[in-house]
């Protein structure tokens, strides 16, 4: 019966692609779970080494990609959902497609879906990277999500063989989740040269989860990530086992030095050149190193660290996460805009590019974007003001963006508004001179729309044939 359900589910994906309804990466999962509600657990039971789960507000797609490369080069036969949805149905679809002979499942998991996915996939390693304020209409309050994750880790700890936890020492909420637990591998960024002066506006994780006192940050790196301690109790940033000790950011990537433990001797350091831009990606890179360490420890398989470093260095940006597409004599860089912390990092990345900037922002308010567009007011767009040569605004809520920039004191004469993404792209490209780069910051569904326009014009392959 399981095979029949799988066959029907697979056929639905094929049909979806034939009808041009999209990538067909999720539909088979939806059909499979309808036919067999426990399919996720059934397929996951076949994975010899169980599964690795990666969750966070920001960075889970990129980290999962890095980790997929790292585990494959380490010789594991991996099934992963890097091209599909990160809800139960997307993971079911990935298992349906690739479970045959796979020994490890590597899954990027939506923050709110983590509890149910963990219940059916026998996690051996759980990577938790950060929690930022995001899509309040969908996820609810951040505090509630942290509580849910704490309950999940409590449940996992009660299991016969609890999974190893790979946790970000620099996020006070994530660090609190690992407090007093065994089997934690901490990662973080030790290089403080990229610190910013203040916590981000409307930062979360400002209060100690242990005692309730206001936390003190000595170094702020990304949003509320940094070096912190509680002045009132013994809660403090755990010293990371795997960390970025030196980071040099470039417009097209970074040189990053990672401290990595060895089994016998002192830790080693490795420096790689990565095409992933921005400090947020430094976190993704160290998270991937830390998770590879945990997987090797868990499966007791020796690791060729140099090979892991090499494939991490070779991993290009994920779909829309800094990827660059050539358009005749111009280039367009796609930077997915999800939430204030993510966009603030994108803004930092743009400011790192030389010269005048051409920017296209597309704001949709569909389910996958979050229907509540308030968050654009929490983004610090203002640093772009002196650098902008042109700014084009599009999407269903283009006029909300226009208001945000108007009240942010931008020169409205430089701003053009065109809700239709195809029109917005034309206007933005027209303002971008030959040899220059247009930086596009679309919300999720706006990125799909934009990608479709680019595909229709022959500039890029359809998104589902990315891998």
């Amino acid at each position, binding site marked *: 019966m399981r095979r029949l359900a799988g066959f029907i589910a697979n056929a639905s994906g094929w049909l979806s692609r034939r009808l041009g309804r999209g990538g067909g990466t999720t539909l088979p999962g939806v059909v499979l779970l309808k036919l067999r509600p426990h399919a996720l657990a059934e397929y996951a039971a076949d994975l010899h080494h169980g599964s690795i789960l990666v969750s966070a507000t920001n960075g889970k797609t990129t980290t999962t990609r890095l980790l997929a490369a790292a585990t494959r080069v380490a010789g594991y036969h991996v099934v992963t959902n890097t091209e599909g949805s990160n809800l139960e149905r997307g993971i079911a679809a990935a298992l349906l497609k690739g479970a045959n002979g796979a020994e490890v499942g590597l899954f990027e998991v939506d923050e709110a879906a983590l509890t149910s996915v963990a219940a059916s996939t026998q996690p051996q390693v759980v990577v938790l990277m950060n929690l930022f*304020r995001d899509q*309040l*209409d969908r996820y*609810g*309050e*951040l*505090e*509630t999500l942290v509580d849910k994750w704490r309950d999940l880790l409590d449940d996992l700890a009660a299991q016969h063989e609890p999974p190893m936890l790979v946790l970000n020492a620099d996020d006070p909420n994530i660090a609190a989740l690992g407090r007093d637990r065994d089997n934690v591998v901490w990662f973080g960024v030790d290089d403080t040269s990229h610190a910013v002066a203040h916590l981000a*506006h*409307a930062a979360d994780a*400002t*209060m100690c989860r242990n005692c309730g006192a206001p936390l003190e940050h000595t170094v702020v790196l990304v949003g509320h990530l940094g070096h912190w301690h509680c002045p009132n109790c013994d809660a403090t940033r755990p010293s990371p086992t795997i960390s970025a000790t030196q980071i040099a950011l470039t417009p097209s990537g970074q040189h990053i030095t990672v401290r990595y433990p060895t089994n016998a001797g002192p830790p080693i350091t490795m420096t790689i050149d990565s095409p992933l831009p921005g400090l947020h990606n430094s976190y993704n890179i160290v998270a991937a190193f830390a998770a590879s360490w945990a997987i090797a420890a868990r499966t007791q398989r020796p690791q060729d660290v140099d090979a892991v470093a090499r494939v991490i260095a070779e991993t290009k940006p994920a779909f829309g996460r800094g990827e660059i597409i050539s358009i005749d004599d111009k280039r367009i860089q796609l930077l997915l805009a999800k939430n204030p912390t993510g966009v603030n990092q994108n803004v930092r990345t743009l400011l790192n590019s030389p010269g005048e900037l051409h920017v296209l922002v597309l704001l949709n*308010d569909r389910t996958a974007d979050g*229907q*509540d*567009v*308030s*968050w*654009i*007011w*929490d983004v610090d767009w203002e640093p772009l003001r002196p650098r902008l040569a042109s700014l084009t605004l599009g999407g*269903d*809520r*283009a*006029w*909300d963006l*226009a*208001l*945000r920039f*108007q*009240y*942010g*004191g931008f020169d*409205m004469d430089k701003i053009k*508004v065109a*809700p239709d993404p195809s029109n917005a792209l034309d206007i933005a490209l027209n303002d971008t001179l030959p040899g220059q780069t247009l930086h596009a910051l679309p919300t999720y569904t706006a990125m799909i729309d934009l990608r479709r326009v680019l595909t229709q014009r022959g500039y890029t392959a359809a998104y589902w044939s990315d891998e």
Partner: protein
Amino acid sequence: MNAAYTVRLCHLYPEMMNIYADRGNIAVFRQRLAWRDIALEITEIGLGDIIDPGQHDLYYLGGGQDRDQNLVAKDLAANAATLQAAADAGAAQLYVCGGIQLAGHQYVTADGTSLPGLGILDLVTEAGATRLIGDLVIDATIEGTTQRVVGYENHAGRTRLGASCVPLGRVVSGHGNDGESGNEGAVLNHVIGTYLHGPLLPKNPWLADLLLGWALEHRYGQDVALRPLEDAVEARAHTAAIGRAGVRR
């Protein structure tokens, strides 16, 4: 800017009560005054701070996460008399989302605990089993003028009005105060409470100017009039938001 006039804004707990982009509302106050060559002076009140009585023309309190809102509820008690006196003296006050709950007599949480509020608005709020989330469009009536106001709501509280305050408006689409009565928000003299965020003021400049007018009146009497602004972008965003709310109903 060497402004002849200044509005004094008291922003209550901006570090904690900022969950729905409340800084957008503050940006609107600042910019709409600046366009009229009027300055905005902001005093931020945090935990343990005491408000200087009578020194502000405009007060703002936004929404927060439950834990922060509980801390603020306790802290507000020390400032309740000052805020009540300011409201009585005609200063403008805007309470958004968690703010409207704290401005009422009490908030009863899901476990039955009663948190006392400021009691400036005659209303009580009780936590509901579900959250009321979505686009919210209302017809708001203040001082005899009715305008369509648009935004977003996301709250567990069910707010019921007492006899001495009237709703800000009637729900056209969405849930409003309790999802049943068709009421949204509350108005008493120059005090407005509402669940509308988005944030509220950028797309509803009529409300922003109403509050700023009250604030100027509080400080300068009838001497200062607000010059009308073009508000073309505001109108486009307002129309687009009503369109999206209609599609999703």
